[in-house]
């Protein structure tokens, strides 16, 4: 009986995986569809200014990190719409679904773990001055996060 249960469980897992793949269901997925919505449209990015990574002059956001974000947006045919603010304000924007991505001088020591999805750290970021830079995404938007990390691996790796 136990053996049969295990067999059933095994078959269920395999057929679930195959079925999902067959239906074009992608793993990982975004529960709130961030990547789908941004692709071919606009990517809403929050920027927290940082001396060596992000520079803000009026409406113009520039710097190494801004260039990386623009390149990522281009890779999904999106244009970047910048919002400049303090980290807490931007993290709240992520939580409330007003932002898709937050960048700045945020490191892998970030205290926002409970309120935002944190990307892997990228110590190779030019201008990071030895810091391991991470980016913040909405919690649980795993397809968006995975796409971003894959892009960053190729861009910075």
């Amino acid at each position, binding site marked *: 009986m*136990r053996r049969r249960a295990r067999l059933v*469980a095994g078959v269920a897992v395999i057929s679930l995986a195959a079925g999902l793949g067959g239906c074009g269901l992608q*793993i990982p997925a975004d*529960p709130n569809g961030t990547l789908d919505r941004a692709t071919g449209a606009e990517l809403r990015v929050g920027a927290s200014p940082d001396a060596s990574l992000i520079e803000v002059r009026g409406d113009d956001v520039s710097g190494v990190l801004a260039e990386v974000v623009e390149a990522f947006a281009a890779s999904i045919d999106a244009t970047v719409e910048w919002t400049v603010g303090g980290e807490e304000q931007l993290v709240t924007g992520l939580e409330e679904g007003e932002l898709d991505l937050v960048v700045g001088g945020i490191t892998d020591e970030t205290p926002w773990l409970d309120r935002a*999805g944190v990307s*892997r750290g990228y110590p190779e970021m030019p201008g990071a001055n030895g810091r391991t830079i991470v980016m913040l995404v*909405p*919690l649980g938007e*795993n397809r968006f996060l995975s796409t971003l990390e894959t892009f960053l691996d190729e861009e910075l*790796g």
Partner: protein
Amino acid sequence: MSRFGRTDLPEEQAVAMRKAVRIEIFTICYTTVTIGVVALVLGNSQAMKTAWVEDILSLTPQVAFLVALIFVRRRPTKAHPFGLHRAMSVGHLVAGVALFVVGTTLAWEAISGFLRGDHPTIGTVVLFGSSVWLGWVMIAVMAVIAIGPPFYGRYKLKLAKPLHNKLLYADADMAKADWQTNAASIVGVLGIGVGLWWLDAAAALFISVGIIWDGLRNMKTATLGLLDKRAATYDEKSVHPLIAEVASTLRALPWVADAAVRMRDLGQVFHVEAFVVPTDPRTPVEAYEAASRAVAELDWKVEDVEVIPVSVLPVEADRGVPDDGEPHADGSDDADATGAARGGGGR
């Protein structure tokens, strides 16, 4: 290894005990490795975290068994006249309480995470130069480490019976059901993968309820043993057949009019108080001593036997007769026959 308090283990039990110690040490090593591997891929999945903590908790019965064994083997002394057999039950109780408390905490974490609407975030890792979703790695790890426990669980189950060890039995039983934990955490991670974030919390809750259940069962068995419940079989399913065997062995003696037994399980061996009503009140002391030896010869588990003369049997003592109280274990007829034969030829 073959000494158990005042009991010398027969060959079968001595071999089983050596195997049990070896498999428990092996299990601790195996589990330590899986704890380390799972820690590397833990991520933000509550189901994975719960399964990981369960893995850590699953070490307690094995550690309790090995530690208790050190004490159980000591001879009785003036300070500890019954030996230290209860160490096994104490270890069992500690393991049960630990499972229950931690299981409850984990269940609460799963429920509160669900109520907060926590969306678990799982990103990628770089594996052999390419970015892979960490969820796939988690699933692979959980699937691979699920292979071991059913095998050693079954092996331990086979050893628990000849050793009459309830801690080993509980340990084996949990190991046999361990694959469910891994399956649940895989379902949780797959749920995150397809965007059903709540499936992670549900899987975590399923695993923690399993832990709570294990804790309750172990606490119950250990507590009942410590409260001197009548001796039962190692799986707690029926009254131990030795009760009937001892009673009928004594009744078969020509000078015994009637006999009844109070038998408690010290965790591994039994402590027996046998009450006998002699046909003649002037029965010599040697007869009682011979009766005590005859009972002790029935089984390696009964070594500590007192035969007490009474004029009326105490009501709570068990006469070992099926229609006397609850139904007794299967094969008690068989036990009667051998008991009577051996009792008749008692030294």
